[in-house]
């Protein structure tokens, strides 16, 4: 299956490190870009809490210093996911994925709510342990085929990639990102500051979509 996600439109090579765009990755890349721009220019919303049994309500206001930190982290997250979308190198992909994990923790780390803090900590533990299968998978890719370049893998001339390596890669990405598989990530989304929090779920979805393409290569 050489023609996986469409014909690559554009390939940019720096020796072994390469960047390429297919219709699939360019769609994902543009979406990451769009949301990064939203994060850049939008102010956070004020989340409304209702005091039950009365008409009273309160809004959670995000302080400027907290907002700056979270906006920075969200932009970093957007850049990392953009990188993961366009890279043509499996190890770079895992590095970007790990970076998305760190920035996801950072996005909610400044929230003062103990509930969210706890969720972020638990998420961080899982994300950190997920780097083991992630890097391990990439290393087995390199050991079995002698190459980390996705273009080379797609050509089909290299030895077959062992199933373990693919399973490790998917396991790592699921550990870094996918919300339904553990509740901590979904709990993080209760934090106020929608434009930033949404970056967490966007980046994990994008990376999951990309890893599907990566796994089907080679």
């Amino acid at each position: 299956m050489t023609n996986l996600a469409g014909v690559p439109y554009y390939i940019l090579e720096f020796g072994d490190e390469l960047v390429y765009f297919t219709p699939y990755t360019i769609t994902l890349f543009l979406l990451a870009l769009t949301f990064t721009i939203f994060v850049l220019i939008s102010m956070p919303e004020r989340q409304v809490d209702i005091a039950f049994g009365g008409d009273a309500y309160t809004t959670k206001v995000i302080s400027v210093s907290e907002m700056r930190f979270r906006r920075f982290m969200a932009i970093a997250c957007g850049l990392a996911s953009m990188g993961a979308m366009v890279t043509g190198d499996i190890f770079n992909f895992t590095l970007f994925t790990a970076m998305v994990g760190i920035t996801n923790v950072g996005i909610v780390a400044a929230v003062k709510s103990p509930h969210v803090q706890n969720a972020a900590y638990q998420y961080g533990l899982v994300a950190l342990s997920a780097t083991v299968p992630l890097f391990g998978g990439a290393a087995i890719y390199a050991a079995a085929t002698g190459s980390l370049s996705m273009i080379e893998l797609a050509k089909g001339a290299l030895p077959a990639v062992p199933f373990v390596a693919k399973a490790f890669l998917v396991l790592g990405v699921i550990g870094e990102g996918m919300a339904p598989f553990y509740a901590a990530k979904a709990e993080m989304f209760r934090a106020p500051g929608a434009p930033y929090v949404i970056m967490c779920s966007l980046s994990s979805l994008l990376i999951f979509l990309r890893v599907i393409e990566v796994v089907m290569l080679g």
Partner: protein
Amino acid sequence: MWGQYSYGILVVLVAGVIAFFALAIETDDLHRFLLLDLVEITALGVIALLGTDLAEALILPGLTVGIAEQLALSQIYCTKERIMQNPVKGLNIEVIAKADAPLIISMFLVVYGLILSGFTGGGVAGLGLVFFFMSRGYREDLNLLEMASGISWALWIFAFFCFMFLPQYWFIALMCAAVGIVLKVTVKMSLVGTMWGNGND
């Protein structure tokens, strides 16, 4: 070759399984955090098994990402458990603060680092300075450190141009570069621990 690799990866995977098992049965948050370091090492083991130059190039970013994640998590742990409210200033142990030993050890380390020169030397000398600052609760003068850093940078650039345009003076250039990088790494190392907010003000 493939046989050796398979055995190696089997051993690392068994180690990984043991580490994950420990992680799974541990319930205390801090202990789990510490165990994670153990888990992380198995990932580096898998990469190291490649046994080529590529492995070295891959371990470094892997290690950096791991350390960055651990730093982020430890910060969250601190805010989560409200440890940040009572900051620690240096090693406030009276025996160390009064004695001459830290001074002597630091001096030894710095001198040894200067003799070693280069990246490693900078690391050793920086360690000496860090030890000294920590034991004395020294108020770092960031301006001085910045100046030293700038001078070392200039030295390095000078050495670079020397290599480019006056290759016959290569020995001077080499010395300049060595001294420059020693200073640079020393300064960077001694900055460790000063970026944690305004604890020293």
